[in-house]
Protein backbone atom coordinates (compact mmCIF):
# COMPACT_ATOMS: atom_id res chain seq x y z
CA UNK A 1 0.00 0.00 0.00
CA UNK A 2 1.14 3.52 -0.72
CA UNK A 3 -0.53 6.68 0.50
CA UNK A 4 -0.44 10.10 -1.16
CA UNK A 5 0.88 12.80 1.13
CA UNK A 6 1.33 16.52 0.75
CA UNK A 7 3.90 17.90 3.15
CA UNK A 8 5.21 21.44 3.09
CA UNK A 9 8.88 21.58 4.07
CA UNK A 10 10.54 24.96 4.54
CA UNK A 11 7.75 26.63 2.60
CA UNK A 12 7.86 24.31 -0.41
CA UNK A 13 5.12 21.73 -0.94
CA UNK A 14 6.04 18.14 -1.75
CA UNK A 15 3.38 15.75 -3.09
CA UNK A 16 4.59 12.16 -2.91
CA UNK A 17 3.31 8.58 -2.66
CA UNK A 18 4.82 6.93 0.40
CA UNK A 19 4.72 3.61 2.20
CA UNK A 20 2.78 3.98 5.46
CA UNK A 21 5.83 2.82 7.44
CA UNK A 22 8.07 5.60 6.06
CA UNK A 23 9.29 7.78 8.90
CA UNK A 24 9.12 11.56 8.57
CA UNK A 25 12.89 11.78 9.02
CA UNK A 26 13.41 9.49 6.00
CA UNK A 27 10.88 11.49 4.01
CA UNK A 28 12.92 14.60 4.75
CA UNK A 29 16.34 13.07 4.14
CA UNK A 30 15.79 10.42 1.47
CA UNK A 31 12.65 11.41 -0.43
CA UNK A 32 13.22 15.15 -0.73
CA UNK A 33 16.96 15.15 -0.07
CA UNK A 34 17.33 17.56 2.84
CA UNK A 35 20.07 15.92 4.88
CA UNK A 36 20.56 18.58 7.54
CA UNK A 37 18.18 16.64 9.80
CA UNK A 38 20.12 13.72 11.27
CA UNK A 39 19.27 10.22 12.45
CA UNK A 40 21.05 9.48 15.71
CA UNK A 41 19.60 6.96 18.15
CA UNK A 42 16.46 6.34 16.07
CA UNK A 43 14.56 5.79 19.35
CA UNK A 44 13.35 9.35 20.17
CA UNK A 45 15.98 9.86 22.85
CA UNK A 46 18.89 11.77 21.29
CA UNK A 47 17.07 14.58 19.49
CA UNK A 48 19.27 14.66 16.36
CA UNK A 49 16.16 14.40 14.19
CA UNK A 50 14.28 17.29 15.84
CA UNK A 51 12.24 19.42 13.41
CA UNK A 52 9.33 21.81 13.80
CA UNK A 53 6.00 20.21 12.89
CA UNK A 54 3.36 22.91 12.48
CA UNK A 55 5.60 25.20 14.50
CA UNK A 56 6.36 22.98 17.50
CA UNK A 57 9.27 20.61 18.01
CA UNK A 58 8.91 16.94 17.15
CA UNK A 59 11.29 14.03 16.79
CA UNK A 60 11.05 13.04 13.15
CA UNK A 61 12.27 9.49 13.84
CA UNK A 62 9.08 8.84 15.84
CA UNK A 63 6.57 10.25 13.40
CA UNK A 64 5.28 8.61 10.25
CA UNK A 65 5.30 10.66 7.07
CA UNK A 66 1.57 9.89 6.71
CA UNK A 67 0.98 11.54 10.10
CA UNK A 68 2.55 14.73 8.72
CA UNK A 69 0.28 14.78 5.67
CA UNK A 70 -0.95 18.34 5.27
CA UNK A 71 1.48 19.66 7.84
CA UNK A 72 4.16 22.31 7.59
CA UNK A 73 7.66 21.17 8.56
CA UNK A 74 10.65 23.39 9.27
CA UNK A 75 14.12 21.85 9.20
CA UNK A 76 17.51 23.37 9.91
CA UNK A 77 17.74 24.33 6.21
CA UNK A 78 14.60 26.46 6.62
CA UNK A 79 15.73 28.61 9.53
CA UNK A 80 17.93 31.05 7.67
CA UNK A 81 16.31 33.92 5.81
CA UNK A 82 18.04 33.73 2.42
CA UNK A 83 21.65 34.56 3.21
CA UNK A 84 20.96 35.81 6.74
CA UNK A 85 21.37 33.20 9.45
CA UNK A 86 18.78 32.82 12.19
CA UNK A 87 20.01 34.30 15.51
CA UNK A 88 20.31 30.77 16.91
CA UNK A 89 22.59 29.80 14.04
CA UNK A 90 24.65 32.98 14.52
CA UNK A 91 24.97 32.29 18.23
CA UNK A 92 25.95 28.63 17.81
CA UNK A 93 28.64 29.91 15.44
CA UNK A 94 29.83 32.80 17.57
CA UNK A 95 29.85 30.90 20.88
CA UNK A 96 31.13 27.72 19.29
CA UNK A 97 28.10 25.71 20.38
CA UNK A 98 29.29 22.64 18.51
CA UNK A 99 32.17 20.26 18.29
CA UNK A 100 31.62 17.53 15.70
CA UNK A 101 28.35 19.16 14.66
CA UNK A 102 26.21 16.03 14.34
CA UNK A 103 23.75 17.01 17.07
CA UNK A 104 23.71 20.67 16.03
CA UNK A 105 20.69 20.76 13.68
CA UNK A 106 18.52 19.01 16.27
CA UNK A 107 20.01 21.07 19.05
CA UNK A 108 19.14 24.30 17.22
CA UNK A 109 15.59 23.18 16.43
CA UNK A 110 15.06 22.16 20.08
CA UNK A 111 16.47 25.53 21.12
CA UNK A 112 13.96 27.18 18.79
CA UNK A 113 11.18 25.38 20.71
CA UNK A 114 12.72 26.40 24.03
CA UNK A 115 12.79 30.09 23.06
CA UNK A 116 9.26 29.87 21.65
CA UNK A 117 8.06 28.76 25.09
CA UNK A 118 10.43 30.91 27.16
CA UNK A 119 12.07 33.90 25.51
CA UNK A 120 14.39 34.63 28.43
CA UNK A 121 15.55 31.29 29.86
CA UNK A 122 18.12 30.89 32.62
CA UNK A 123 21.05 28.52 32.11
CA UNK A 124 19.20 25.93 34.21
CA UNK A 125 16.04 26.35 32.14
CA UNK A 126 18.09 25.91 28.96
CA UNK A 127 19.54 22.66 30.29
CA UNK A 128 16.04 21.41 31.12
CA UNK A 129 14.66 22.58 27.80
CA UNK A 130 17.33 20.67 25.90
CA UNK A 131 17.00 17.49 27.98
CA UNK A 132 15.84 15.59 24.92
CA UNK A 133 18.97 16.36 22.93
CA UNK A 134 22.32 14.70 23.41
CA UNK A 135 25.76 15.95 22.42
CA UNK A 136 28.11 12.97 22.54
CA UNK A 137 31.09 15.35 22.31
CA UNK A 138 29.67 16.64 25.62
CA UNK A 139 29.90 20.22 24.41
CA UNK A 140 27.02 21.35 26.57
CA UNK A 141 28.66 24.41 28.16
CA UNK A 142 28.95 26.25 24.88
CA UNK A 143 25.55 25.06 23.72
CA UNK A 144 23.99 26.68 26.79
CA UNK A 145 26.01 29.85 26.16
CA UNK A 146 24.86 29.87 22.54
CA UNK A 147 21.18 29.61 23.42
CA UNK A 148 21.54 32.31 26.07
CA UNK A 149 23.29 34.54 23.52
CA UNK A 150 20.55 33.94 20.96
CA UNK A 151 17.86 34.79 23.54
CA UNK A 152 19.57 38.11 24.24
CA UNK A 153 19.90 38.87 20.53
CA UNK A 154 16.28 38.03 19.82
CA UNK A 155 15.08 40.07 22.79
CA UNK A 156 17.13 42.97 21.50
CA UNK A 157 14.93 43.01 18.44
CA UNK A 158 17.70 42.31 15.98
CA UNK A 159 16.02 39.17 14.68
Amino acid at each position, binding site marked *: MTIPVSITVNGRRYDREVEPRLLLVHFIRDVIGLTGTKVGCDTSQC*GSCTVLLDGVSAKACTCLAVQADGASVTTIEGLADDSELHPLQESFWNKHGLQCGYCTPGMIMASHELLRCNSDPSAEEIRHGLEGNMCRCTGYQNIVRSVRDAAETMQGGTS
Partner: protein
Amino acid sequence: MFAPQFDYYRASSVAEAAALLEQHPDAKVLAGGHSLIPVLKLRLAAPSALIDIGRIDGMRGIREEAGQIVIGALTTHSELAASATLQSGATALSEAAGMIGDPAVRNRGTIGGNVAHADPASDLPAVLRCLGAEFAIAGSSGTRTVGAADFFEGLMTTAVEEHEILTAISIPSGSGGQGSAYAKFSHPASRYAVIGAAASVTVADGVCSAASVALGGLVPAPVRATAVEDALAGKALSADAIADAARCVGDSLADDEVLGDVYASAEYRSAVAHVWVSRALTAAAARCG
Protein backbone atom coordinates in the same frame (compact mmCIF):
# COMPACT_ATOMS: atom_id res chain seq x y z
CA MET B 1 15.11 0.98 11.99
CA PHE B 2 12.20 0.18 9.76
CA ALA B 3 8.83 -1.06 10.92
CA PRO B 4 7.33 -4.09 9.23
CA GLN B 5 4.93 -3.21 6.42
CA PHE B 6 1.39 -2.33 7.37
CA ASP B 7 -1.65 -0.78 5.75
CA TYR B 8 -2.83 2.61 6.95
CA TYR B 9 -6.32 3.98 7.43
CA ARG B 10 -7.19 7.42 8.73
CA ALA B 11 -10.43 7.64 10.69
CA SER B 12 -12.37 10.90 10.78
CA SER B 13 -14.74 9.84 13.57
CA VAL B 14 -14.87 7.42 16.47
CA ALA B 15 -17.57 5.46 14.65
CA GLU B 16 -15.39 5.16 11.56
CA ALA B 17 -12.43 4.06 13.66
CA ALA B 18 -14.56 1.43 15.39
CA ALA B 19 -15.79 0.16 12.03
CA LEU B 20 -12.22 -0.03 10.71
CA LEU B 21 -11.18 -1.99 13.79
CA GLU B 22 -13.99 -4.49 13.13
CA GLN B 23 -12.73 -4.89 9.55
CA HIS B 24 -9.09 -5.26 10.59
CA PRO B 25 -9.06 -7.32 13.77
CA ASP B 26 -5.29 -7.25 14.29
CA ALA B 27 -4.90 -3.53 13.56
CA LYS B 28 -3.37 -1.17 16.10
CA VAL B 29 -4.66 2.31 16.91
CA LEU B 30 -2.28 5.19 16.17
CA ALA B 31 -2.53 8.57 17.91
CA GLY B 32 0.74 10.42 18.62
CA GLY B 33 2.73 7.30 17.94
CA HIS B 34 5.19 7.71 20.79
CA SER B 35 4.44 4.30 22.26
CA LEU B 36 3.41 2.47 19.09
CA ILE B 37 6.09 3.57 16.60
CA PRO B 38 9.00 2.43 18.84
CA VAL B 39 7.21 -0.92 19.33
CA LEU B 40 6.86 -1.30 15.55
CA LYS B 41 10.47 -0.27 14.87
CA LEU B 42 11.73 -2.77 17.42
CA ARG B 43 9.42 -5.33 15.78
CA LEU B 44 7.77 -6.19 19.07
CA ALA B 45 4.49 -6.00 17.15
CA ALA B 46 3.62 -6.47 13.49
CA PRO B 47 -0.01 -5.43 12.96
CA SER B 48 -1.44 -5.72 9.45
CA ALA B 49 -2.82 -2.19 9.66
CA LEU B 50 -2.77 1.03 11.66
CA ILE B 51 -5.94 3.01 12.28
CA ASP B 52 -4.91 6.66 12.68
CA ILE B 53 -7.28 8.42 15.08
CA GLY B 54 -5.02 11.45 15.45
CA ARG B 55 -7.30 13.83 13.52
CA ILE B 56 -10.67 12.95 15.02
CA ASP B 57 -12.46 16.14 16.05
CA GLY B 58 -13.59 16.41 19.65
CA MET B 59 -11.11 13.92 21.08
CA ARG B 60 -8.60 16.57 22.11
CA GLY B 61 -8.65 19.12 24.90
CA ILE B 62 -9.59 19.55 28.54
CA ARG B 63 -12.99 20.71 29.76
CA GLU B 64 -14.86 20.85 33.06
CA GLU B 65 -18.37 19.49 33.27
CA ALA B 66 -20.55 18.46 36.23
CA GLY B 67 -17.78 18.25 38.81
CA GLN B 68 -15.49 16.36 36.44
CA ILE B 69 -12.45 17.31 34.42
CA VAL B 70 -12.82 15.54 31.07
CA ILE B 71 -9.66 15.02 29.05
CA GLY B 72 -9.84 13.94 25.42
CA ALA B 73 -7.64 10.94 24.69
CA LEU B 74 -5.70 12.87 22.02
CA THR B 75 -4.61 15.59 24.45
CA THR B 76 -0.82 15.82 24.42
CA HIS B 77 1.45 15.74 27.45
CA SER B 78 2.45 19.35 26.69
CA GLU B 79 -1.21 20.36 26.83
CA LEU B 80 -1.71 18.49 30.13
CA ALA B 81 1.35 20.16 31.64
CA ALA B 82 0.26 23.65 30.52
CA SER B 83 -3.41 23.33 31.51
CA ALA B 84 -4.49 25.85 34.16
CA THR B 85 -7.52 23.63 34.86
CA LEU B 86 -5.28 20.69 35.73
CA GLN B 87 -2.66 22.77 37.51
CA SER B 88 -5.31 23.91 39.97
CA GLY B 89 -7.73 20.96 39.98
CA ALA B 90 -5.45 17.95 39.44
CA THR B 91 -1.93 19.19 40.09
CA ALA B 92 -0.39 15.72 40.16
CA LEU B 93 -1.51 15.07 36.59
CA SER B 94 -0.06 18.25 35.08
CA GLU B 95 3.08 17.76 37.16
CA ALA B 96 3.56 14.16 35.98
CA ALA B 97 2.86 15.06 32.35
CA GLY B 98 5.59 17.70 32.52
CA MET B 99 8.09 15.03 33.62
CA ILE B 100 7.50 12.70 30.66
CA GLY B 101 10.40 12.35 28.24
CA ASP B 102 11.38 15.76 26.89
CA PRO B 103 9.62 18.73 25.24
CA ALA B 104 9.49 17.25 21.73
CA VAL B 105 8.14 13.95 23.05
CA ARG B 106 5.54 15.80 25.13
CA ASN B 107 4.44 17.73 22.03
CA ARG B 108 3.45 14.48 20.26
CA GLY B 109 2.65 11.89 22.92
CA THR B 110 -0.98 11.67 24.05
CA ILE B 111 -2.62 10.71 27.35
CA GLY B 112 -4.80 8.13 25.62
CA GLY B 113 -1.90 6.45 23.86
CA ASN B 114 0.13 6.50 27.05
CA VAL B 115 -2.44 4.76 29.22
CA ALA B 116 -3.67 2.38 26.51
CA HIS B 117 -0.05 1.22 26.11
CA ALA B 118 0.12 0.79 29.92
CA ASP B 119 3.89 0.57 30.19
CA PRO B 120 4.62 -0.15 33.87
CA ALA B 121 7.38 2.47 33.83
CA SER B 122 5.01 5.15 32.56
CA ASP B 123 3.97 8.07 34.76
CA LEU B 124 0.31 8.74 34.08
CA PRO B 125 -1.22 5.38 35.11
CA ALA B 126 -0.24 5.83 38.78
CA VAL B 127 -1.55 9.40 38.80
CA LEU B 128 -4.86 8.41 37.24
CA ARG B 129 -5.20 5.53 39.72
CA CYS B 130 -4.52 7.97 42.56
CA LEU B 131 -7.03 10.53 41.31
CA GLY B 132 -9.81 7.98 40.73
CA ALA B 133 -10.03 8.45 36.98
CA GLU B 134 -12.69 6.93 34.79
CA PHE B 135 -12.01 5.82 31.23
CA ALA B 136 -14.51 6.13 28.36
CA ILE B 137 -14.08 3.28 25.90
CA ALA B 138 -15.93 3.23 22.57
CA GLY B 139 -16.67 0.32 20.30
CA SER B 140 -19.03 -0.36 17.43
CA SER B 141 -21.79 -1.21 19.94
CA GLY B 142 -21.46 1.97 22.01
CA THR B 143 -19.45 3.50 24.83
CA ARG B 144 -18.74 2.11 28.29
CA THR B 145 -16.95 3.56 31.30
CA VAL B 146 -14.34 1.75 33.38
CA GLY B 147 -12.78 2.91 36.66
CA ALA B 148 -9.02 3.07 37.13
CA ALA B 149 -8.98 0.03 39.44
CA ASP B 150 -10.35 -2.12 36.62
CA PHE B 151 -8.79 -0.30 33.66
CA PHE B 152 -5.18 -1.28 34.35
CA GLU B 153 -5.26 -5.08 34.30
CA GLY B 154 -1.57 -5.89 34.33
CA LEU B 155 1.69 -5.51 32.46
CA MET B 156 0.83 -3.54 29.31
CA THR B 157 -2.74 -4.79 29.51
CA THR B 158 -5.86 -2.69 29.91
CA ALA B 159 -9.62 -3.13 29.77
CA VAL B 160 -9.65 -1.77 26.19
CA GLU B 161 -10.57 -4.70 23.94
CA GLU B 162 -9.00 -5.11 20.50
CA HIS B 163 -12.01 -3.67 18.69
CA GLU B 164 -12.36 -0.69 21.06
CA ILE B 165 -10.86 2.80 21.39
CA LEU B 166 -10.16 4.82 24.51
CA THR B 167 -11.81 8.19 23.84
CA ALA B 168 -11.65 10.23 27.08
CA ILE B 169 -10.49 10.19 30.68
CA SER B 170 -12.43 11.90 33.48
CA ILE B 171 -11.22 12.80 36.94
CA PRO B 172 -13.17 14.41 39.77
CA SER B 173 -12.50 18.16 40.03
CA GLY B 174 -10.34 18.92 43.04
CA SER B 175 -12.25 20.14 46.07
CA GLY B 176 -11.34 22.69 48.75
CA GLY B 177 -8.60 21.55 51.10
CA GLN B 178 -7.32 19.01 48.60
CA GLY B 179 -3.84 18.89 47.14
CA SER B 180 -2.07 16.39 44.92
CA ALA B 181 1.47 15.77 43.73
CA TYR B 182 3.64 13.33 41.81
CA ALA B 183 7.18 12.38 42.79
CA LYS B 184 9.36 10.41 40.44
CA PHE B 185 12.58 8.50 40.65
CA SER B 186 13.60 8.83 36.99
CA HIS B 187 15.84 6.39 35.22
CA PRO B 188 18.81 8.64 34.42
CA ALA B 189 18.96 7.70 30.74
CA SER B 190 15.41 6.91 29.65
CA ARG B 191 13.54 9.20 32.07
CA TYR B 192 11.03 6.45 32.60
CA ALA B 193 9.86 5.97 36.18
CA VAL B 194 11.90 3.57 38.29
CA ILE B 195 9.42 4.53 40.99
CA GLY B 196 6.51 6.92 40.55
CA ALA B 197 4.42 7.99 43.53
CA ALA B 198 1.18 9.95 43.20
CA ALA B 199 -0.55 11.34 46.28
CA SER B 200 -3.75 13.24 46.89
CA VAL B 201 -4.72 14.41 50.36
CA THR B 202 -7.55 16.45 51.79
CA VAL B 203 -7.11 18.39 55.02
CA ALA B 204 -10.11 19.44 57.12
CA ASP B 205 -9.85 21.01 60.57
CA GLY B 206 -6.09 20.51 60.52
CA VAL B 207 -6.15 16.77 59.98
CA CYS B 208 -6.14 14.43 57.00
CA SER B 209 -9.73 13.60 56.11
CA ALA B 210 -8.99 11.72 52.87
CA ALA B 211 -5.86 10.31 51.26
CA SER B 212 -5.14 8.44 48.06
CA VAL B 213 -1.68 7.16 47.21
CA ALA B 214 -0.78 5.14 44.11
CA LEU B 215 2.50 3.72 42.89
CA GLY B 216 3.84 2.98 39.45
CA GLY B 217 7.18 2.11 37.94
CA LEU B 218 7.99 -0.76 40.27
CA VAL B 219 4.84 -2.82 39.72
CA PRO B 220 3.24 -4.30 36.56
CA ALA B 221 0.15 -2.10 36.92
CA PRO B 222 -0.45 0.85 39.26
CA VAL B 223 -1.44 -0.05 42.83
CA ARG B 224 -3.06 1.92 45.64
CA ALA B 225 -0.96 2.05 48.81
CA THR B 226 -3.93 1.57 51.11
CA ALA B 227 -1.72 0.88 54.14
CA VAL B 228 -0.22 4.38 53.74
CA GLU B 229 -3.66 5.92 53.27
CA ASP B 230 -5.00 4.24 56.40
CA ALA B 231 -2.01 5.36 58.44
CA LEU B 232 -2.69 9.01 57.55
CA ALA B 233 -6.39 9.02 58.44
CA GLY B 234 -7.17 11.62 61.08
CA LYS B 235 -3.56 12.71 61.49
CA ALA B 236 -2.11 16.20 61.17
CA LEU B 237 0.20 16.00 58.13
CA SER B 238 3.47 16.72 59.94
CA ALA B 239 6.78 15.60 58.48
CA ASP B 240 6.96 12.80 61.04
CA ALA B 241 3.39 11.63 60.39
CA ILE B 242 4.04 11.54 56.64
CA ALA B 243 7.35 9.70 57.03
CA ASP B 244 5.80 7.14 59.38
CA ALA B 245 2.84 6.53 57.08
CA ALA B 246 5.08 6.28 53.99
CA ARG B 247 7.03 3.46 55.67
CA CYS B 248 3.85 1.35 55.49
CA VAL B 249 4.12 1.26 51.68
CA GLY B 250 5.66 -2.21 51.70
CA ASP B 251 2.39 -3.62 53.06
CA SER B 252 0.76 -2.69 49.74
CA LEU B 253 3.48 -4.23 47.56
CA ALA B 254 3.33 -7.99 47.00
CA ASP B 255 6.95 -9.17 47.03
CA ASP B 256 6.55 -11.34 43.95
CA GLU B 257 5.09 -8.47 41.92
CA VAL B 258 7.82 -5.85 42.38
CA LEU B 259 9.78 -5.35 39.17
CA GLY B 260 13.56 -5.23 39.04
CA ASP B 261 16.14 -4.78 36.34
CA VAL B 262 19.88 -4.38 35.95
CA TYR B 263 19.65 -0.74 37.02
CA ALA B 264 17.41 -1.12 40.09
CA SER B 265 16.64 -4.48 41.68
CA ALA B 266 13.23 -5.31 43.10
CA GLU B 267 14.74 -5.31 46.60
CA TYR B 268 16.20 -1.85 46.09
CA ARG B 269 12.98 -0.42 44.70
CA SER B 270 10.99 -1.88 47.59
CA ALA B 271 13.46 -0.45 50.08
CA VAL B 272 13.39 3.12 48.76
CA ALA B 273 9.75 3.38 47.64
CA HIS B 274 8.79 5.04 50.91
CA VAL B 275 11.08 7.99 50.12
CA TRP B 276 9.12 8.82 46.97
CA VAL B 277 5.77 8.28 48.70
CA SER B 278 6.91 10.66 51.41
CA ARG B 279 7.99 13.30 48.87
CA ALA B 280 4.68 13.08 47.01
CA LEU B 281 2.71 13.33 50.25
CA THR B 282 4.77 16.27 51.49
CA ALA B 283 4.22 18.20 48.25
CA ALA B 284 0.51 17.31 48.17
CA ALA B 285 0.03 18.42 51.79
CA ALA B 286 1.70 21.76 51.01
CA ARG B 287 -0.87 22.31 48.26
CA CYS B 288 -3.95 21.81 50.42
CA GLY B 289 -5.50 25.26 50.17
